[in-house]
């Protein structure tokens, strides 16, 4: 049981998270190309949604992107499922800083854990671009079903 003092500290900590707004909040948005994008401050990660991995089928290859700036809408990497190579697109202007090397050895992780298996990390100054993306509710309306974000 938290003492009154500890409880106050917890409340204060949460308030600082809350009142710092975007700079302290993780926030996930979605694209109509079926990518999820998480942003904390100006640092983010990107992957594909559970809906997307179901539609693609078994993923056999993830080609990691070049570490550079990518314009909005530019293809940044390729995911191959059986018999099909599908582009993954930059959701807004980003600087790719890292690709997930684990996926080069175990591309099937994108199927089993689409939300845990980020494909790229990036930085961005285009937070307006991020805010224009779909909320979870809007994405679910787009795909016509509930999106399982648990993995």
């Amino acid at each position, binding site marked *: 049981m938290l003492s009154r003092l500890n409880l106050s500290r917890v409340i204060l900590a949460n308030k600082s998270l809350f009142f710092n707004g975007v700079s302290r909040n993780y926030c996930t948005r979605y694209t109509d190309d079926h990518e999820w994008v998480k942003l904390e401050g100006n640092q983010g990660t990107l992957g594909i949604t559970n809906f997307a991995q179901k539609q693609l089928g078994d993923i*056999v290859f993830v*080609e990691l992107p070049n570490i550079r700036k990518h314009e909005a809408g530019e293809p940044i990497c390729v995911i191959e499922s059986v*018999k*099909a*190579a599908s582009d993954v697109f930059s959701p807004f202007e980003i600087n790719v800083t890292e690709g997930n090397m684990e996926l080069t050895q175990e591309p099937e992780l994108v199927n089993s854990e689409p939300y845990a298996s980020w494909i790229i990390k990036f930085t961005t100054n285009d937070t307006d671009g991020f805010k224009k993306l779909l909320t979870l509710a809007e994405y679910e309306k787009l795909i016509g079903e509930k999106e399982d974000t648990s993995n």
Partner: protein
Amino acid sequence: MNKIKILKLKNFPILKQLQLEEALYRTPNTGNWIILNEGTPEPIVIVGVSGKADKLVNLKQTKERNIQTMRRFSGGGTVVADENTIFSSILLEFNSFKQFYPHMKSFYPKDIMKWSAEHFYNKVFIPHQDFSLQEHDYAFGERKFGGNAQSFCKEKFLHHTSFLWDFKDDNMMSCLKQPEKIPEYRQNRDHLSFLCKLKDRYHTKDQVFNNFIQTINNIPSLHSIEEVSLKDAESFLQNNHFKANQIYNYNLNVWENIKNDYNNI
């Protein structure tokens, strides 16, 4: 929008055809294209974008036979192509495709693969009632004669196929390894046991090509077909685009960018 350009080629190097296709695929607003090619002059092994050459290709034997190995920009498996391979490539913009096939509600790779068998190639290969899509490959009965690969971007998709009019048994056996993930219908059979040849079903290649053209003409809501020249397609090579097609260097055991006149444009 509801127009398709057709490029007919004969004995045109598939390596250059794939360079053209990549330019058309990666350049916006190219319109709809179908490319038909009757053979490639020299045998060549073609792996898909994720292809690990050492796992899919008997590199020593392929090098000794003076057969090139290339990696194409699309997904899919490994083929040995030569003058007896028929190539068919369908590049359609989604806006057009939705007008041709308004009943389709979903346009993911599996949907396009299914469409290709149930609404296009079933008509090309009429009246062979045993034509089907078997785990992403075209087959008569249980024997495959066509291998597919696809690529998807925002605006369009590419679905291209290599058909076996005939093949050299020893090239197939020598160049290709059994894939690690074997399709179920293959049942661990070697290459010669699960493949068949179009020449055993048709007297001439012209019969097959005529069926292609007739099927294209019958695409619903298609306004017109325009037969174009190689130069028309080559004009798109000038557009700056990412180039993923590569050639294997047997001496250094690495994939390298293609160095030819198409990459100097």
